[in-house]
């Protein structure tokens, strides 16, 4: 048996041993591991979660059956005799030696750096020490919040600052470079990152260094190069790392210019029995401070030790990083700093939206080399696999908000289209080639799109890309898209389903086209949704003006415009819920939902609510749901406009408006955005000049932030723009298409929308406004409409031959003091 000694029990050393144990089925190697730290190998990448309460055990990597000596570092390597000596005096002969000693924090040589209260940020022991010092500082009597200085504003420095903050200190980050995270992001990205980090209440000073640290009445004072003095209870150095190569140097192994044991593409040092991997290794002179390249090196050495021929080149090492720093998305990939000769940079910087994106492309603008994303890293997954490949689209459009969707065509074959069922693009394309030419056919043969369904649009795109004509037909009864049908209804004056299907369709419709036609008719203002033949078109929610829940009962939601409700009204809601035994819950949209009403109870419930001044909240229809609001100038110290007043006005204006999909809005009284207006189909944020209008947020399965359509509007202009926007959406969107994908589907995207809404480029603005006026003028409460009409009321019975007998299948039990449904059995229950 051959002897392998691994020096270092960190993440990469551990991976090597794991890979070797897995593959050495013949038992060729006997492995001894030496660790300087007294603990078994742990996940250093997740180190910061330790201060959030993740335990050391949780971070520990799976244990392996090898001779492991912890707390006993190697102190000498005798290469001639092929022996390692440890601190405790152990002598270990080897046939192969792997150096995996990682790196040590770099502490700049400033006076005072050894004072008590100064720390580095690398190991669990470091964090224990920091935690103890922080606890002591916080407990110390005296006014004010305890503070800390973090030396270094790179990835680790920011992580350390965040950790210090969760330990109750106020951290100040001092970065010598002019920007944060100088290694991963560029100037523009760094500037935005700084703004975002500062709005997370972290103080940052860039372009200055720490010149010295001194003790001052039991605390520390850090003096900066610009003369500023910062008081601190703790100082944490995270100013970079240096490869832990002392042992190798002493053993006479060549090291790189900037440290690190020189290795070749096999990870072998100049000594054929000695290998180096991870942060201590310098491949072609360069060291790598990330775990992924280290893991790749570990795999190469494991392969080599078993006689394999694996190699690696710097180009193959994945230096991409994606992280969420204090809630800020940051990603960098490939040649993020544009070091390739002739490389071109394409930047889209949107300080208003808080996003920065850069692509680095080759000198002929054909190949993607790398990039940086700050603020919104959602395109990372699509961009990273493209590094080194030809650009699929104009680079600006690839990163511009509302630009080309980096969808199916840009993705490599190995990219996962359906992550629920792990179906790759290759598999889908293959299936299309084999004749699956519709989405249902693709679903059946690949399982893609059968779970959450969020990839169905991508499947459609792949079909289109493959030249398959995807039918726009609504269903077997109409060969038209919803937008086309809308135009037909609007221009022909046909106002019944029968008329429409007779003239322009076939058969008697189905659950797809009937509600779509119902919605079109409702948008065109054709009276109560139950009038005449329209009653038969409505799906169950619109038919019963309430929301069908899983056990066949309904939920009832009165409108609370802007979320405002009087104490008197609150009491009525409480009384109704109590008297009818309804489960109550505050919804996600600032309303009160009452669950568990049976069909025959609905009119009596509405009667009480309508009498108290409530209207239908349209929680059921594909219609306006809520306009959420914060408290704005009325109450809030920061408010610059009356967000509640506007929200109430907008909710009343658009109540009852039917659309291709349900839609929501929000109004925030200032840029602090307490109403989360940017996650809505249209959202409004007050500025001290007026209102900013954002559109296309939410997105359903694929969450999206709304984008700025127009800024600093007065209220009248704002309302006019929203009228146009909503009506344009209602007229041209597909069935069940939310505003976000609708905007994406517009040729020209957001810019086109802006042209239509703001500049009236199509000359239809007056038309759209008139249509909205008609809706607003003809609005009537649908609940009241039923209560006032005996014939409609007669439909609200449990059984036509036993109108007051409750559905015997509806049963409830108690949970947390309220009534909830007993789960119904599946096939065959009761009947």
């Amino acid at each position, binding site marked *: 048996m051959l002897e392998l000694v691994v020096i270092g029990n960190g993440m990469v050393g551990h991976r090597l041993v794991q890979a070797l144990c897995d593959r050495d089925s013949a038992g060729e190697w006997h492995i001894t591991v030496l660790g300087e730290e007294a603990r078994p190998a742990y996940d250093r990448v997740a180190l910061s979660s330790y201060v959030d309460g993740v335990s050391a055990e949780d971070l520990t990597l799976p244990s392996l059956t090898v001779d492991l000596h912890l707390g006993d570092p190697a102190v000498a390597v005798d290469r001639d005799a092929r022996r390692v000596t440890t601190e405790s005096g152990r002598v270990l002969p080897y046939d192969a030696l792997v150096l995996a000693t990682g790196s040590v924090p770099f502490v700049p040589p400033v006076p005072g750096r050894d004072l008590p209260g100064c720390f580095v940020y690398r190991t669990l022991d470091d964090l224990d020490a920091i935690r103890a010092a922080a606890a002591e500082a916080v407990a110390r009597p005296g006014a004010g919040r305890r503070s800390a200085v973090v030396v270094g504003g790179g990835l680790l420095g920011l992580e350390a600052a965040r950790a210090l903050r969760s330990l109750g200190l106020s951290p100040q980050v001092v970065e010598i470079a002019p920007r944060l995270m100088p290694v991963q992001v560029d100037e523009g990205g760094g500037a935005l990152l700084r703004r975002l980090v500062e709005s997370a209440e972290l103080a940052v000073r860039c372009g200055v260094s720490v010149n010295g640290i001194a003790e001052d009445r039991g605390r520390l004072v850090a003096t900066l190069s610009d003369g500023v003095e910062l008081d601190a209870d703790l100082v944490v150095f995270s100013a970079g790392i240096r490869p832990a190569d002392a042992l190798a140097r002493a053993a006479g192994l060549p090291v790189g210019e900037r440290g690190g044991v020189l290795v070749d593409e096999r990870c072998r040092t100049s000594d054929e029995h000695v290998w180096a991997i991870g942060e201590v290794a310098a491949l072609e002179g360069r060291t790598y401070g990330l775990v992924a390249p280290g893991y790749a090196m570990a795999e190469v050495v494991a392969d080599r030790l078993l006689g394999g021929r694996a190699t690696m080149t710097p180009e193959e090492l994945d230096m991409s990083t994606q992280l969420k720093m204090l809630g800020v998305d940051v990603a960098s990939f490939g040649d993020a700093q544009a070091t390739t000769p002739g490389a071109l940079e394409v930047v889209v910087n949107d300080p208003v939206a808080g996003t920065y994106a850069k692509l680095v492309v080759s000198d002929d603008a054909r190949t993607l080399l790398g990039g940086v994303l700050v603020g919104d890293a959602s395109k990372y997954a699509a961009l990273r696999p493209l590094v080194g490949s030809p650009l699929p689209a104009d680079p600006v459009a690839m990163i511009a908000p509302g630009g080309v969707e980096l969808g199916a065509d840009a993705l490599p074959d190995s990219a996962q289209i359906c992550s629920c069922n792990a179906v790759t693009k290759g598999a889908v394309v293959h299936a299309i080639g084999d004749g699956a030419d519709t989405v249902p056919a693709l679903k059946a043969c690949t399982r893609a799109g059968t779970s959450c369904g969020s990839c169905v649009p991508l499947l459609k795109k792949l079909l289109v890309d493959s030249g398959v004509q995807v039918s726009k037909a609504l269903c077997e009864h109409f060969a038209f898209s919803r937008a086309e049908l809308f135009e037909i209804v609007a221009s022909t004056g046909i106002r019944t389903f029968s008329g429409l299907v007779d003239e322009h369709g076939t058969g008697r419709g189905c*659950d797809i086209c009937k509600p779509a036609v119902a919605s079109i008719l409702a948008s065109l203002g054709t009276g109560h949704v139950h009038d005449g033949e329209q009653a038969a078109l409505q799906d169950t929610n619109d038919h019963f003006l309430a929301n069908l829940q899983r056990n066949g009962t309904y939920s009832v939601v009165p409108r609370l415009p802007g979320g405002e409700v009087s104490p008197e009204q609150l009491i009525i809601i409480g009384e109704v819920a109590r008297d009818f035994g309804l489960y109550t819950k505050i919804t996600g949209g600032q309303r009160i939902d009452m669950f568990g009403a049976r069909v025959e109870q609905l009119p009596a419930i509405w009667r009480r609510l309508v009498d108290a001044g409530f209207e239908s909240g349209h929680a059921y229809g594909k219609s306006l749901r809520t306009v959420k609001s914060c408290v704005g100038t009325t109450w809030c110290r920061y408010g610059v406009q009356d967000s509640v007043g506007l929200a109430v006005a907008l909710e009343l204006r658009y109540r009852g408006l039917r659309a291709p999909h349900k839609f929501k809005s929000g109004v925030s009284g200032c840029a602090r955005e307490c109403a989360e207006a940017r996650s809505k189909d249209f959202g409004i944020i007050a500025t001290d000049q007026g209102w900013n209008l954002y559109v296309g947020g939410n997105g359903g399965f694929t969450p999206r932030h709304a984008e700025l359509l127009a800024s600093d509007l007065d209220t009248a202009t704002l309302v006019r723009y929203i009228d146009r926007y909503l009506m344009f959406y209602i007229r041209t969107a597909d069935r069940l298409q939310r505003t976000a994908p609708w905007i994406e589907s517009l040729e020209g995207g957001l810019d086109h929308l802006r042209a239509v809404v703001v500049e009236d480029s199509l000359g239809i603005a007056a038309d759209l406004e008139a249509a909205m006026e008609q809706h607003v003028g003809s609005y009537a409460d649908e609940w009241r409409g039923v209560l006032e009409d005996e014939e409609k009321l007669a439909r609200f019975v449990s059984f*036509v031959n036993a109108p007051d007998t409750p559905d015997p299948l509806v049963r409830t039990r108690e949970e947390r003091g309220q009534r909830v449904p007993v789960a119904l059995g599946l096939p065959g229950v009761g009947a």
Partner: protein
Amino acid sequence: MTATETSVRWTTICPLERLLPERGVAALVGDVQVALFRLHDGSVHAVGNVDPFSGAAVMSRGIVGDRGGVPTVASPVYKQAFSLVDGRCLDDADVSLPSYPVRVEDGQLDVGLPW
């Protein structure tokens, strides 16, 4: 329908006018829930009211239409379509609703349940 007068018991449900064209109603016959539909062409159909996929008694509240010429009702819960002629589910061959004979006498709608 193959059911004969002797094998079913007829129950009068309601006047036929109570049924809007292409909109169902639920009826309770003993402890059996039935969903009754009157179609555009005037024909009347009855199937079980309990949706086999959700267990909820809601079939009468589904949207009526046709698929490839077969008159259907779609479950309002998970949207599977069922034939109004024989109750079979058009989206899952293993599932079906019970279907019942109906007749109209003197403007009254009767449904026949097995003895």
